[in-house]
Each structure stands twice: as structure tokens, then as C-alpha cells.
């Protein structure tokens, strides 16, 4: 693996997507500001905006940095560089997830901090951690579908599916006994169910990345 070349390609995507990243940061920080107001209404509006900003970032990154390479016909330019398709795939998966993880981590930490400093809602922290990881699963799904299919239609389908899944999983997790029992309490309680859900989410991320590399290694036509 030519790591210096992978790094150059990742930095290229960071540069080309810089305005999207900055816009997400601005939107995310504004959302955290709204949550910090403290009222119930502000909390839900802020949370909704925060999730929207992250979901929009994952979709926009996949469409622009992955599908866009084929759609805008810049793929022949990139693939004319001294790289293999494995290195290209690595740069796209790792690069896009890193771009996503930075604002995601800032916003997740911001959310935890707000909840931690509010004695009434500390019980929400495990649920927030599970849902924040679910947003990461969602971003990974969209990036994997975009890399494998390089098609706008499939990527949009993955974005829609991920979004529906996020709402559905949010509802289901809130009704899992081991999470729901302590969710609205004033202290943090990490139940075995909460741990199991988090481990499952990270396992799904690992499986999706592995499947993407496996599928890419079997491709025979890259243009």
C-alpha cells in the first residue's frame, strides 16, 4: 500500500470538500448553541438540526467526493496517477470517514458535555452515544454504497434508507428495556443492553468496510 499517495488523495478531498466541512461545523455549532438554551423546545429543535447537519454531511460527501468523481469525469484523472484501485478505495473510504468523523466527534462530544452539565438529563448520555454511533453507521453505509456502485441513484437510496433507519432505530432503542429504564433519569447508567447495542454498531461498521474492500478487489473495470 502506497500510504503517501493515499494521504495525498485524502488531502485532495479535504481541500475540495472544505466548504461543506465548514458549513457543517457552523450548522452543528449553531445547533449545540440552541440545545444549550436549556428549554425542552430548544433541546429538540437543536437535536433535530444537529442530526440533520450530520446526515446532510454524509450524503453530500458521498455524492460529491465519491459519486462525483465518476459523474464529473474526474475519475480518469485520478486513476491516471500512480495508484492502484485498492489505494483509491482506501483513500475514499478512510478519507471520507475521517472528514465525517471530525465534525461528528466535535458534535458528539459537545452533546455529551451539554448533557453532562445538565443534572436532569445525564441519563440520556448512553442513548445519545448509541444514536451518535448510529449516525456513524449511517455515514459508513452511504460511503460504502457510493464507493461500490459509484451511482447517484443507489447512493440516494442509501441516504433515504439510512435516514429512515435512523428514525426507526432511534424509536426502537428508546424502547429497549435496558436503555429506556434509565433514559430519563438524572444519572448515567451503562446497561449491558446499551453496551451490546454499541458493540453491534461498531461491528456493522467493520463489516461494511470489509465488504466494500472485498467487493472492490473483485472489480475488473474501473472506468
Amino acid at each position: 500500500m502506497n500510504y503517501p499517495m493515499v494521504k495525498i488523495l485524502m488531502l485532495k478531498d479535504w481541500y475540495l470538500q472544505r466548504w461543506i466541512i465548514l458549513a457543517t461545523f457552523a450548522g452543528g455549532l449553531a445547533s449545540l448553541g440552541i440545545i444549550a438554551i436549556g428549554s425542552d423546545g430548544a433541546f429538540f429543535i437543536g437535536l433535530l438540526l444537529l442530526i440533520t447537519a450530520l446526515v446532510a454531511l454524509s450524503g453530500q460527501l458521498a455524492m460529491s467526493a465519491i459519486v462525483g468523481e465518476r459523474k464529473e469525469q474526474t475519475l480518469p484523472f485520478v486513476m491516471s496517477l500512480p495508484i492502484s484501485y485498492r489505494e483509491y478505495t482506501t483513500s475514499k473510504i478512510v478519507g471520507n470517514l475521517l472528514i465525517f468523523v471530525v465534525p461528528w466527534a466535535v458534535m458528539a462530544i459537545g452533546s455529551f458535555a451539554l448533557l453532562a452539565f445538565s443534572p436532569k438529563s445525564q441519563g440520556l448520555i448512553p442513548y445519545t452515544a448509541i444514536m451518535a454511533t448510529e449516525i456513524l453507521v449511517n455515514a459508513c453505509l452511504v460511503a460504502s454504497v457510493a464507493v461500490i456502485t459509484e451511482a447517484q441513484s443507489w447512493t440516494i437510496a442509501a441516504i433515504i434508507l439510512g435516514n429512515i433507519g435512523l428514525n426507526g432505530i432511534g424509536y426502537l432503542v428508546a424502547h429497549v428495556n435496558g436503555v429506556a429504564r434509565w433514559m430519563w433519569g438524572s444519572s448515567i447508567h451503562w446497561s449491558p443492553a446499551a453496551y451490546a447495542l454499541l458493540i453491534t454498531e461498531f461491528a456493522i461498521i467493520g463489516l461494511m468496510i470489509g465488504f466494500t474492500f472485498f467487493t472492490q478487489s473483485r472489480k475488473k473495470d474501473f472506468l
Partner: protein
Amino acid sequence: MIAVHFEGVKKTYPHFALDDINFSLPAGCVMGFIGANGAGKSTTIRILMGLVHADGGTVRVLGHAMPAEQAAAKLDIGFVSEDMRLYPSATIAWHMEFIRSIYPQWDATYAESLLRRFDLKKEQKVKGLSHGQRVKAALLLALARKPKLLVLDEPTTGLDPVARREVLEEFMAVLADEERTILFSSHNTLDVEQISDQITFIDRGRIIDSNDKEIFLDRWRRLRLVLPADSELPSVPGVIEVGGSGRMPVLTTNRFEPAMVSAYRDKGATVQAVDNMTLEEIFVANVSSRRAGERA
């Protein structure tokens, strides 16, 4: 040294197949790769670049087995294709810096001189460039990395005559470097004729002919005959196509020798003219005679 070597290369798609592609391009040569649209030029070039994996056969480029060693091979290849685009939101300067960071042999002085020669402005974003300027910018990025092998897939398609002239002149300047090898695909035979010293014709996924340009131009001729009344066209080896009418046939040969003229004269025919053929005429005659042979 052989820069590009294809041996028994096959690639099958549902509605198209490359069949048994064999050719070699020695280092320092310029090969014109000519074929009609859909003949298989781009697929062949993509296999050469490692971007499409062949179903069978072997490909070696600059001593590297493709596609396994494509990353190492592409360090010394400059590639420009008609369907290649640069990043629209970035400037030419950003692209130059991007390529410079990858290729240690990047020649900044040469890049600057190409900017001036192509009348390009570094600060300009790619989305604001015309098609001709985009092609020139892509060429600049390919040339200034000083590649040992330049692969050009229809680079002059869609260019206006002035831009085409500038681009071809730059290719000719590049040819001054005898170490440089160029594979130049096009359906525009005039462009290919100007810069190539080897020609390969491809049609319907098969290489139909490959030789030195001068050999093509020397061996292909059109003979205009007048036959005596009530006589048939004498049979002379090397004629691949007969046109014209009755007593005034026009023959196309791919094995012309002055002895052919004497042979026809000896058999009573009057040879009115022996015409040279352009590369385009040779290509068209070659394709139609092969296709006629396949139909027969």
C-alpha cells in the same frame, strides 16, 4: 527496449469484444492508434493503463506487468483522454501543485513555459475554461511530469483548428526527446499522420494492421487503368479492392511495387495513374477490405 507490449489480450463485454490484441511499441517511437468510434481504442488504452482488467493475455508497460504493477508503471506515464476532466472548482495552479506533489520529476520551468504557450492563466478555475483550454491544461499536467510514456486517447477531439494546431505543435516539440514514447489514439487520421512513425489500425475489437507509417504510405497505392475493349481485368497479386467501372477500373493495392505497373502493361492494360494514398484512405480501404473478407 519495448515500452508497451500486448500479447493475446482479450476482453469480452455483452455487446463488444477485444479479440487477441497483439502489438509492441518500442521506446522512443510514436504510435498512431487509429480506429472508428467503438472500434476498441479506448478499451485497449484502459487495459494498458490498468484501469480495465483483461480477460486473457499479457500486458507489459515500461517493464511492468499490468494491471498488478500499475502504480509503479503510472509513475512514468502521462495520460490524457477525451473523457478526462479536471476538478471544476479548483484552479490550474492547484492542479499543478497537486501533480508536483506526486511526481518528483515535475519540471516547474517547463510547466510555466507551457502555460504561456497554451495561453492559460494559473489562477483560473477549471469550470471557467473552454473545452480547448481544458484539454491544454490536462496536457500541461501530463507533459510537465516528464513521462517516459505519453498515452493520448483522442486528445484532439472537439478542439477548434487553432487549439488543435497548438496541441499538435507541442506534441512535435515533445518528439525532440528521443527517449519519449507516445501512443496516440484518434479517429482523425490527419492528426495521427503528422506526428506518428508507427501506425496500428483497429476495427471491431481486432488489430487489422500495424506497421511503420512510411511502409503504409509506400505500399498502398491506387492504380487507374484503362482496359482494351472486350478484355477482362488481368489478375495481379496484391490487389485488395477493385472499384471504378468496366473498362476503367481503379485498383487498391497494399503491396505496391513498380513491377505491378509493368505486369498490367504486359497484359495489355494502360496504366493512367498511380496515386499515393493518404492515411485516411489507407485506413478506410483496409477496414472495408477486411470487412468484405469477413462477409465472404
